[in-house]
């Protein structure tokens, strides 16, 4: 305690201007805006309109940055007077806008394009709104200041105002960003098609459409808030939170998954299928990383094994095993279990040498193993068997009776069934004896061993079972593409899977699904972002680790762990608010 006081005292010695925080916030948000522009994200999303001829995605992003600067500032300064906070917001916004203005000036006075490829005249036009420097520079500063103030006002307004406004904006954003998708889905019926004509043109929302969506969403949000308040007052829990409600929710999610690709066509089918494949892989890696704590960066190798086994067993190419061995051509249904089995074997084989390697070293060792697999598959030395860089072509699509699963939607259903089955297995494994043993190993290997857990068996099972999921995924991947190339099995896939389970929540099954939808589905839908998806992954990994290490949808155990940990820290000297809260809880409990 004394040490903390001393350091706090020292920190306070430096006299800071009252606007220090506003300046820093403005600088940070301004740097974000400049970064987005220089890296090329803003110029890219400028092509896409949210509201036709009124607002592009890039402008929306800049607006959000300005508002965000104000809102962030207001959050930490509740105890100041409103005038001070508003003034701070004004300063932060102006600083952020000023940085952008500086960028514009720099772009127009020095030739930066020969180094920074995104700083083209088009980018300059985007930032200046083609108004010329003399108007644009003050405009950027003023706009920033106004947005900062608006952000502050939004943040300090009462929730009953803030929430509906935010929901309305989000709804407009959602309908604008996913306009292509929504429009395709709205085409199937004439009546809905008429609605579409009002809301949309082919480039984006019409201004009227945006207004309609905003009003509806705001109204709905107001209604829901009012109902929630009423139910909270009467003390009844909503039906949705009951057990039946939970099942109903899951049922609705299932129905959406089945109907969505049928309604939205093959493009969505393709995207969802990819999501499904990553869910499969994610569940596999989740067993290794999430449950057993074995950080495996060579995971892609098992995916490759599944894909290559399927290809070698089923393809109509000279590289297929049937072409030069006694093994007959197989159908996909025969090859898939074999592929899974071989993946398991490879998984165990991979696991054995790295059994004694722990922590960070394990990550690097497995990454090395994964890279070895890729190098070997790509090389000429293995080309007679694995076809080298040319890949194995002409893998037939799976058939059921006379029906060929050629359509992405049909293949999506195949993936869905497999993922469902795998999810069931993973779910059962989680709370099984083995699952608990994994968690014990994750938390402390030495203690787990001392408690009689056979480390070798448990770890190898984690590698093997994890590999099984990846092998299944690879097998479907091979028939999806009808060809396999070594270039599909880069380290990036491993990182991708790792990122999605971390974003979703380590050790959590629903987390895997959320993570794949967010990291695989979203970039696939926002096709322009494809180029920047790995940038997004990197940022997601850092931010998740810092802000929400338990993930978007954490598992119950992990939530409890982190919660307990936080509780431990507070134990020493609980602030009065916490004490009061705990007391209130204690009073409530008998009444329940």
């Amino acid at each position: 305690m004394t040490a903390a006081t001393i350091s706090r005292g020292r920190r306070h010695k430096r006299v800071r201007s009252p606007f220090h925080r506003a300046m820093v916030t403005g600088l940070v948000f301004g740097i974000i805006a400049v970064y987005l522009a220089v890296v090329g994200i803003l110029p890219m999303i400028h092509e896409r309109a949210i509201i036709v001829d009124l607002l592009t995605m890039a402008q929306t992003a800049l607006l959000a940055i300005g508002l965000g600067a104000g809102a962030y500032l207001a959050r930490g300064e509740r105890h100041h007077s409103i005038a001070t906070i508003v003034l701070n917001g004004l300063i932060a916004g102006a600083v952020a806008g000023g940085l952008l203005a500086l960028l514009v000036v720099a772009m127009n006075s020095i030739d930066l394009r020969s180094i920074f490829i995104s700083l083209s005249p088009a980018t300059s036009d985007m930032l200046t709104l083609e108004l010329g420097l003399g108007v644009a520079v003050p405009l950027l500063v003023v706009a920033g200041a106004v947005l900062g103030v608006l952000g502050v006002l939004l943040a300090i307004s009462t929730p009953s105002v803030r929430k509906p406004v935010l929901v309305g904006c989000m709804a407009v954003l959602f309908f604008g960003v996913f306009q292509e998708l929504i429009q395709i889905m709205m085409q199937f019926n004439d009546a809905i098609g008429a609605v579409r004509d009002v809301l949309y043109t082919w480039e984006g929302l019409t201004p009227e459409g945006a207004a309609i969506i905003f009003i509806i969403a705001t109204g709905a949000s107001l209604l829901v808030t009012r109902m929630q308040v009423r139910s909270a007052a009467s003390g009844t829990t909503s039906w949705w939170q009951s057990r039946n409600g939970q099942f109903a929710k899951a049922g609705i999610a299932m129905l959406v998954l089945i109907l969505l690709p049928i309604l939205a066509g093959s493009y969505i089918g393709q995207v969802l299928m990819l999501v499904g494949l990553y869910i499969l892989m994610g569940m596999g890696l989740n067993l290794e990383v999430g449950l057993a704590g074995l950080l495996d960066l060579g995971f892609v190798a098992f995916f490759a094994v599944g894909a290559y086994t399927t290809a070698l067993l089923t393809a109509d190419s000279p590289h297929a095993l049937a072409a030069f061995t006694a093994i007959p051509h197989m159908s996909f249904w025969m090859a898939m279990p074999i592929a899974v089995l071989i993946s398991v074997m490879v998984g165990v084989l991979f696991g054995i040498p790295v059994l004694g390697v722990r922590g960070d070293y394990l990550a690097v060792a497995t990454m090395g193993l994964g890279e070895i697999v890729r190098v070997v598959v790509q090389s000429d030395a293995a080309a007679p068997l694995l076809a080298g860089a040319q890949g194995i072509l002409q893998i037939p699509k799976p058939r059921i009776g006379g029906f060929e699963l050629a359509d992405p939607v049909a293949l999506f259903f195949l993936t869905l069934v497999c993922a469902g089955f795998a999810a069931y297995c993973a779910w059962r494994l989680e709370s099984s004896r083995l699952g608990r043993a994994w968690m014990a190993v994750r938390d402390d290997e030495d203690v787990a061993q001392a408690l009689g857990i056979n480390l070798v068996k448990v770890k190898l099972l984690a590698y093997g079972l994890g590999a099984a999921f990846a092998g299944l995924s690879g097998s479907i991947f091979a028939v999806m593409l009808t060809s396999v190339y070594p270039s599909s099995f880069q380290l990036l896939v491993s990182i991708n899977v790792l990122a999605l389970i971390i974003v979703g929540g380590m050790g959590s099954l629903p987390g895997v699904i959320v993570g794949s939808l967010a990291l695989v589905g979203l970039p696939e839908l926002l096709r322009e972002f494809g180029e920047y998806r790995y940038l997004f992954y990197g940022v997601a990994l850092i931010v998740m680790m810092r802000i929400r290490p338990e993930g978007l949808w954490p598992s119950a155990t992990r939530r409890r762990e982190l919660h307990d940990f936080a509780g431990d820290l507070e134990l020493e000297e609980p602030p009065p608010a916490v004490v009061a809260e705990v007391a209130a809880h204690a009073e409530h409990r008998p009444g329940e």
Partner: protein
Amino acid sequence: MADVAAGRSLIPRLSTLSRFTFVDVILWALRIGVTIVVVGGTIGTLYKGRYVATQWFDLVMFGLTLGSVYALIALGYTMVYGVLRLINFAHGDIMMTGAFSGYFIASALDYSGFLNSNPILAMGAILAVAVATSTTIAVLTERFAYRPFRHVRGLAPLICAIGVSFFLEQTFRGLFGPSIHSYPDPKWEAKPIVLYNFSAPGAETPIPPLTVPTVDVVVIALAIVAMLVLYTIIQKTRMGTAMRAVSEDTDAAAMMGIDVNKVVVFTFALGGAMAGIAGVFYAFVFKQVYFFMGFQPGIKAFGAAVLGGIGSIPGAMLGGFFLGVVESVGPALFLDGIGIPAPYQLRDLIAFTLLIMVLIFRPHGILGERMAKKRA
């Protein structure tokens, strides 16, 4: 503490004697298999005699060049690991940032002709800018990405480091484009240094003389100078002493009044500077710069750091040179002999196999005194 460690290492040794499990069988098979490939391949290659002595010499020289780059990068890994017990996964990408900034200076100087008229000054300028950039980025990474995880156990710091690596790569991709930029060719590189002339000038059938590419000599020499400077800094200066103290025992060092934060920043700065130099050299040797270039040398240099014994500075240098030579000579020496077609495609295979073998069988490396399992 020492007794516990000794006891720990004793117990598995006894149990291996009493119970020889299938895992041990497979591990031994792995050792024996790799040994057979290495020995058999070497004998096969030498027996075939496809390579002459000058070719071996070229391979070794190239290996030393590559190795000096690895060694410079490995120093960054090893210093950061020593102080923070963190694998700075993004260190290879910090090298890339140095290479990129050096490239822009080099191409500007090439355009103005300065690169050829004043090669030494130009090299100095390129190195200075590269070092400045990579040091800045290394320090910034530490401040914003690693410092919040200073006291976090488990996988979070490593995962964050992977995120940083991606962030740096993709940022540079966005800034400078995904294409491969080709590095300018200064004139002094064109003529190799002749070490020994086998035949008298004007002979009828001249035997090709023993030569070394000038780049190799420059890179190796400058890298050794850089390493010597670094070693002096660490051994002789106050800050270097503080750094060694922190890597010995952080808490005790803090109690002796050492500002650990300052030391960590200093470590990252030194590592970043070495990575910047490595980036310039790597670009000079391979003549290309692109956003993903840091990944592979980064991983290999980590292998080199582990090979030498992570935390040990001479170890990192030794490991780097060793890895470079093995990677360069290996395909010809080990793989050609057992009749593998196109062995040079498998260069990375040799490096990664070495990396994995070290991680599995000798995680404390050649010179490492610290137990590698300490962090786990």
